[in-house]
């Protein structure tokens, strides 16, 4: 694990054609600093795995606007109508997953599980083309794991080893994505000494974490503000 002074340096490893996981549920728990730097990078053909794809012209929405997104995998793109429009124009692929499947598939990707059977989506349009199997008289759908080259996530605090804790509902997809990407880049609100986070309360042990930066953008009641 290594600390970086800026999002630019931490994101230098990102390349065109890669798959990037992006934490957060809307703005809550989103790696706001890293996202805003990601959209500035000269990369394209990205596959983005994230619950949402930002809003029109904001956050990940900018990446879409710049036509850098080849494919989006997530559960709820309705909040950004550009996504549907780009899909209609054939500019991007969309893989829509139930939110529980999105979360579970990311966990599976980090846990060495190639696929798993869930009842969710059985018999619906989202299960079309997917294998099914009967367990104890009930039908289940086979869902495959998701993995990424890079995950950008947000945590509340990191210690100097890279152990992470999260804050309230800003936890959401972040700890899962920390397990499922080759390079895990985290922005945090605070860095503390190793030993300051209680050993029973660490949500993401440091073995998952590669790069840490201090967040420059923070979500407040008044919206996203810069600090530091």
């Amino acid at each position, binding site marked *: 694990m290594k600390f970086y002074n800026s999002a630019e340096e931490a994101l230098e490893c990102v390349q065109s054609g890669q798959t990037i996981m992006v934490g957060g*549920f*809307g*703005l*809550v*728990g989103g790696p706001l600093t890293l996202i805003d730097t990601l959209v500035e990078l000269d990369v394209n053909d990205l596959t983005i795995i994230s*619950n949402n794809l930002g809003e029109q012209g904001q956050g990940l929405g900018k990446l879409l606007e710049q036509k850098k997104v080849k494919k989006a995998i997530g*559960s*709820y*793109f*309705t*909040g950004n109508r550009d*996504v*549907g*429009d780009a*899909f*209609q124009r054939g500019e991007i692929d*969309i893989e*829509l*997953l*139930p*939110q*529980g*499947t*999105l*979360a*579970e598939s*990311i*966990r599976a990707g980090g846990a060495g599980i190639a696929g798993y059977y*869930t*009842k*969710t*989506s*059985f*018999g*619906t*349009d*989202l299960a079309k083309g997917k294998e099914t199997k009967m367990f104890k008289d009930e039908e289940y759908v086979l869902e495959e794991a998701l993995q990424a080259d890079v995950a950008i996530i947000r945590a509340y605090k990191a210690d100097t080893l890279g152990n992470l804790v*999260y*804050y*309230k*509902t*800003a*936890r*959401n*997809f*972040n*700890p*899962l994505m920390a397990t499922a990407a080759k390079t895990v880049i985290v922005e945090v609100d605070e860095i503390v000494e190793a030993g300051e986070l209680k050993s029973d309360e660490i*949500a993401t042990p440091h073995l998952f974490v590669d790069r840490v930066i201090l967040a420059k953008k923070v*979500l*407040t*009641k008044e919206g996203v503000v810069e600090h530091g």
Partner: protein
Amino acid sequence: MANPIQEAIAKRAAQELEQGQIVNLGIGIPTLVANYVDHNHVYLHTENGMLGVEDVLEEDIDPNIVNAGKFAVGEAVGASYFDSAASFAMIRGGHVDVAILGVLQVDEHARIANWAVPGKNIIGVGGAMDLLVGARKVIVTTTHTSKDGKSKILKECKYPITSTRSVNTIITDLAVFNYIDGQLHLVELMPGADLETVETNTEATFVNSLK
């Protein structure tokens, strides 16, 4: 956002809840149900990773505590937070007692459609499919008819279904139906509604089980 019709439906839905239950509220009318429950006796779960949701005063808002609709909420005493996989494990593993969901359509097999409209971009599903397979009891809340006066309670859903699972109870501005032994049963008229209005506005076949 709330209007008296929606509030009446939400209030009636809240009456279905029993002490000690774990309840997940969908977006729209279901969110309003939170206003009518006693947070010491009913525990609200939100799929973005929280058990123990309650209302919050404007001055106490923490932007990092939100519900599935991304609205600011409060933290009840004894609330807990968890990641999205753990949250959906609760839902899909059968640990949520009741889900209250909005619908676009519901049919006489009590199957619902609430995530996609043909011809429009199918680009959002969220947790709806998960809640339908996992929650022990599913209650749906909806206006009985769409804005152009068409019944939302159909013989067969015209939009893509959200699950093959039948919901247990349908609460509209006109009536309450339970789904029992393969049939919709009209069990209650909402205040001000009469049987004829319900019959006129319901395409689905139902059994009149009014007492």
